[in-house]
């Protein structure tokens, strides 16, 4: 049992030091386990992490519906350092400084507000000051520590190998309990699988409900202003808001394509401009509160029927002017987006129709993402390839995390014949 933290460090990059920063990040990406700067694997508590540099003025190249890009859309280059980790944030910052002090220094050195001295205490404060917590987040594998997920994946390999031995030929085994007993013996004989002898502590009622209290309160507080803003948006600006009709930049497609589909998971990082005006601010903030509330109750691996998200979150930057989305999901981008469209389009539209260029929504939640073509186009156009993408378990999908946990949970339980057959179905 472990509580997770889902957050980013968001830092403004000194434009003069962009190249320097890029070279640091490229070195990390090139050899994620061995580079001299930051080795996530050694931290032991990181599920997924990424670094993304958002180029300056990224809407400048965009054709807005009319006129030049708004001045307030211009901004300095920004570094987003995404973390999906076990445990609380301050402890993680300490760990970063213990294990990767020079690396963090090298990164912070490239920021526009770098402190004059970079002693440990100063750097610690700097990092904590630049934490941006998720406005809404989803965890597909809640309460599962990195180590357990990795251990259980190893356990499966051993169990599957023994099952292969028992079914070396086409002829079937007949006794489920005996098959299980032999698997148990093999696992027992392997000291590195001793962890399986003890079940992991399941989350208590407090573990489950504690993280829900805040979102419930926020949801209640947000409801009335949100409903008001929702009504206004529906009746007014929604019908005339700009819809982006352009074609996705092909260089961007190539850059994303080069990085995608290397491991079981893919990464998505999007920055969208929130539509201007306080009403949109209210619908945006309100819908994030509600999405966060829904996600707090989606603890069995799926979010709105989407079974492939490990960690995803939204947060508002620049005082709400921009919406950041980060996701670590299983399988292809096309599949992920199609799941959005078929299974979660209302929630998605509710959030992203508050941002510039999204396909026409009706009543905030309808339309929008159901225009699959234009939804995919703007989702791609607003995506930025991560400079660094780290996964602690490159071959393990959300579904497999659950299946592997089921193997471990009842490995040594006393089961009758039906129970044994049900257990063997996990293979």
């Amino acid at each position, binding site marked *: 049992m472990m509580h997770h933290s889902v957050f980013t460090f968001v830092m403004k990059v000194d434009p003069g030091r962009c190249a320097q920063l890029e070279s640091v990040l490229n070195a990390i990406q090139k050899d994620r386990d061995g580079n001299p700067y930051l080795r996530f694997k050694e931290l032991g508590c990181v599920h997924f992490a990424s670094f993304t540099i958002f180029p300056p003025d990224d809407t400048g190249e965009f054709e807005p519906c009319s006129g030049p890009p708004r001045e307030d859309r211009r901004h300095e280059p920004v570094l987003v350092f995404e973390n999906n980790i076990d445990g609380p944030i301050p402890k993680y910052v300490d760990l970063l400084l213990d294990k990767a002090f020079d690396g963090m220094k090298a990164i912070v050195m490239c920021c526009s507000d770098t402190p004059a001295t970079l002693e440990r205490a100063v750097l610690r404060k700097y990092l904590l000051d630049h934490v941006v917590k998720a406005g809404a987040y989803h965890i597909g594998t809640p309460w599962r520590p990195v180590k357990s997920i990795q251990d259980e994946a190893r356990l499966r390999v051993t169990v*599957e190998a023994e*099952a*292969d031995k*028992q*079914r070396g*030929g*086409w002829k*079937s*085994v*007949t*006794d*489920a309990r005996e*098959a299980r007993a032999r698997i148990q013996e093999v696992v027992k004989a392997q000291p590195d699988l001793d962890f399986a002898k003890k079940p992991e502590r399941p989350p208590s009622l407090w573990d489950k409900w504690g993280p829900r209290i805040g979102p419930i309160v926020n949801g209640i507080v947000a409801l009335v202003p949100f409903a008001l803003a929702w009504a206004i948006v529906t009746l007014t600006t929604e019908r005339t808001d700009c819809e982006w009709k352009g074609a*996705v930049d*092909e260089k961007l*497609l*190539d850059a994303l*394509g*080069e990085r995608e*589909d290397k491991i*079981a998971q893919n990464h998505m990082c999007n920055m969208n401009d929130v539509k201007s005006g306080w009403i949109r601010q209210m619908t945006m903030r309100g819908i994030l509160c509600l999405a966060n509330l829904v996600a707090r109750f989606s603890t069995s691996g*799926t979010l709105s*029927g989407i*079974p492939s998200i490990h960690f995803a979150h939204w947060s508002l930057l620049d005082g709400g002017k921009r919406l950041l989305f980060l996701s670590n999901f*299983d*399988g*292809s981008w*096309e*599949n992920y987006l*199609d*799941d959005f*469209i*078929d*299974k979660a389009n209302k929630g998605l539209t509710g959030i992203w129709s508050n941002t510039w260029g999204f396909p026409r929504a009706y009543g905030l939640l309808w339309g929008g993402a*159901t*225009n*699959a*073509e234009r939804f995919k186009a703007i989702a791609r156009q607003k995506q930025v390839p991560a400079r660094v993408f780290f996964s602690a378990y490159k*071959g393990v*999908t959300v*579904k*497999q995390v659950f*299946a592997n946990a089921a193997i471990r949970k009842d490995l040594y339980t006393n089961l009758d014949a039906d129970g*044994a*057959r049900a257990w*063997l*179905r996990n*293979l």
Partner: protein
Amino acid sequence: MLEKNRDDIQGMIFSAYVHLECAAYLLLRVTDAALARKWVGQIANEVTNAVKPPKDHRPPVNINIAFTATGLTNLGVPEAVVDTFSYPFRSGMATERRANILGDSDANHPKNWEWGNDQKPVDVVLMVFAQDEFVLKDELERRKSQLAANGLAIAAEIPIAGRQPDSREHFGFNDGIGQPTIAETDQVQRQQERTHHATPLPPGEVLLGHENVYGTMTPSVGIDPSLDPKNVLPPCSGGKRDLGFNGSYLVFRQMEQDVATFWNFANQIAGGDEDVAKLIGAKMVGRWESGASLALHPHKDPNAGTDTLDRFNDFNYEKDPEGYGCPVGSHVRRANPRDTLGPTPDIATNSANRHRIMRRGRSYGHRLEGDRLKDDGQKRGLHFICFNGDIERQFEFVQQTWINNSNFAGLGDEVDPLLGDQLSCSGIMTIPSDPLRFRVHNLCRFVTIRGGAYFFLPGIRALRWIAAM
């Protein structure tokens, strides 16, 4: 709406021309743009459209034509127009990115292809369908003799798709059963009669510029009206003219099949027991050789040894969620997971139908006669052809997210046993059984990609526009 477009739509989108039992695919290069355009103009007059001829007046030969992106460019279509086509079509099938999506690595990597790659690019495919071998031969000779004078040359010779004894592919399995149909056409009823089941899809799943499964228009190819001074093309939104309307993207992959290796592999697992070998073959495919689904007939082929073809297609996997009958990782269950990919069967079916393709492939080479464990050294395979309105969402999705996804539907470390990217005979396939699953190890490639390309099959007005440019 669709009916009145029949004279503008190339016929092979609506019909597999099963009455024309022989076919050939001429892969061409453009050597002289002006001459070749003139030739395209003649083809536009001869090309088979989708108007149904009376049954006793069907011509002995049908002709259809499609172009790659380089083909359009080499015919002189302006860059700005070619740029309006979809990205995968323009980039072509042979790029590294496409190879990654399609799972074309190793022996299947485009650099090893016999055509369709940078070494042997293709501009045009002229598809000739004939009622018999002799008509096909005459037709091909005539067509080939006219190429040079028309600014064209053969890009690569590929085997003709000759007459086959029945509708089975070379491994021996009845093929082409799970085919979608275009709503509001007679396809729906024909499919219903043939397989007792039809999945009607909106025309935009196949035809550009028509409504698709999302209720929006499949992106077409809008061009500046100044490029169409004679008003050959129909108008489309934004004051443009529609070059894509009634056209389709055609995916072509030449897949060589190693029949003896496939059955030897099954036979080896079966320990020489012929019935078990047939079962293992069927487990890999997901259907019995007759075409009957393992989800309905888990224990034996209801039509084994008879000529009866079980074309029953009215099923889903509701009663076989674990895959004890039809394995979750079998070829047909991956290629169309039907109602299985949750959260409810209805939502799953709806989602799966966003990724259907209209298959029009034909086998080439002779069936391996006699003992199918003994290779006869002959080349055989499938000219896989399919139509779709959106290559990324349909063909590439099926290939990437279902066929070649090692984590498909909760599985791990295994890809499609027939078409998957099996690296150096190390493939795995899980065959669920009670109480303990069986895993096939050391799966090799039974299918090798010999070439491939993305084509655009234009509507007939669009053909005229290309010719008149």
